[in-house]
């Protein structure tokens, strides 16, 4: 059976496609209208936090490839804290495994295969610290990288913002 799948091209007019760096916060907030909730602020922000909305964490998932006009390809999700990052991403239909999505190509959340890599761009304070398994698997990787199946995001009453870079091995840009 022939599946007609058209792949995006490698960057062609090469003079513009060197790695671009991003001042991430301002860019994402401006483009999506996030209202920044910071779990550490206690003083004046109580007026701005919507009392009727149940506590939830805002997520921005950034794709490894930029959009054709050069801006980051961000998917916004909202989830209650206390769950593993892997579950939040799979429930939100975010591409976590990339080419390793097929059955038997990943360990399904066991923490052994190392294919559910993500890079934490913002929101590190909401995430649980690296487990021993993660430290073993991610020994040679940058400090911001995590295994999504081992990372728990906050508690059920957490409020905050987390920005995650999907498939960091394939990304074409850098974060400042």
């Amino acid at each position: 059976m022939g599946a007609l799948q058209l792949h995006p091209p490698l960057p062609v007019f090469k003079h513009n496609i060197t790695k671009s760096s991003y001042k991430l916060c301002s860019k994402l907030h401006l483009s999506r209208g996030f209202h920044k909730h910071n779990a550490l602020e206690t003083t004046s922000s109580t007026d701005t936090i919507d009392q009727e909305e149940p506590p939830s964490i805002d997520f921005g998932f950034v794709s490894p490839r930029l959009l054709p006009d050069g801006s980051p390809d961000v998917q916004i999700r909202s989830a209650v804290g206390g769950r593993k990052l892997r579950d939040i991403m799979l429930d939100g239909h975010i591409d976590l495994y990339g080419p390793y999505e097929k059955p038997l190509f990943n360990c399904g959340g066991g923490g052994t295969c190392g294919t559910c890599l993500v890079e934490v761009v913002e929101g590190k304070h909401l995430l649980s610290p690296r487990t021993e398994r993660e430290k073993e698997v991610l020994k040679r990787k940058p400090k911001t990288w995590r295994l999504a199946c081992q990372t728990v995001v906050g508690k059920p009453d957490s409020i905050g913002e987390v920005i995650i870079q999907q498939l960091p091995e394939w990304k074409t840009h850098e974060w400042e």
Partner: protein
Amino acid sequence: MATLLSLHAPRPNPHHLIRASSSSSPTTTTTTTTTSTTTQDSPQSLEERFGRKGVKFTESGGVPTVELSVRNGSSVSLRIPDGLVTSYKPKVYWKEDGFEEVLHTIPSGLDSGCPLKGGLSLVLNDVSKDGSLWQASQWTVKDSESDSIDAVQVELSCSNGDGSLEITYVISLYLLCMATAVIVKNKGNDTVKLTSAMLSHLKFKSRRGAAIQGLRGCSYCSHPPLSSAFGILSPAEAMEQEPPGWPFFNNNGNEEKEGSWIVEDNLYTILRGKLSRVYTAPPMDRMKRIYNTPPSKFETIDQ
């Protein structure tokens, strides 16, 4: 109405415009007849000014067309005054030395105007003033670019009556895909309200094997496409339910009423039954502080 192919177009960068500086001056007006208002150039003069390796200007049925081609033999054919892409034939790996036509065109049966319907066309309407609808229709070549092996590009431009809207339509061809980009500049003083669509008519091998992957989790609702002279189905025809001779395929018909939003559950959106939908975040959701954004990438599967 969602675009079926998600592609990466080159960024609109000033390099394209810099190369055109010599030809953007109004030498495009034909010097002979002063009565005609449309500025159509002959294929020879277009070839002289914009011809490059892989970009060839010819005439087909009396209408200037441009043929883009790249090293592996993939080609795109575009009618210039209509801005209609009539053919895209990429090199495919399942045929030895073979190319497969991706776009579907049919004769329109009209004596005047464009003899074809289908293909890939841009619909861009200015709906700012009630009653007078302006549609982008007369295109002229503005620039072309080629890196002589892997990628070629042609830019068409169009402007409305009083020059307040400047539209550039960039069609690019790469080794494994083609891409389009549209840049609209508002040069006037008033705000402009536009409706637009890329009408793509694709050929599939069979209804049963046609599907789209990547829309799971996104909300959709029934919605007619924009009307266009190049559309094979009019908006009303697209929204019509299929006759109940296909009861097993048209299982969506009862659930979808115009205006009701449903979240796509399936990994593959199978195109067996006739459907006309828009996939996006519902307007009520967009009023909330935070909502799930619709997917930016999806694949079309043809078995």
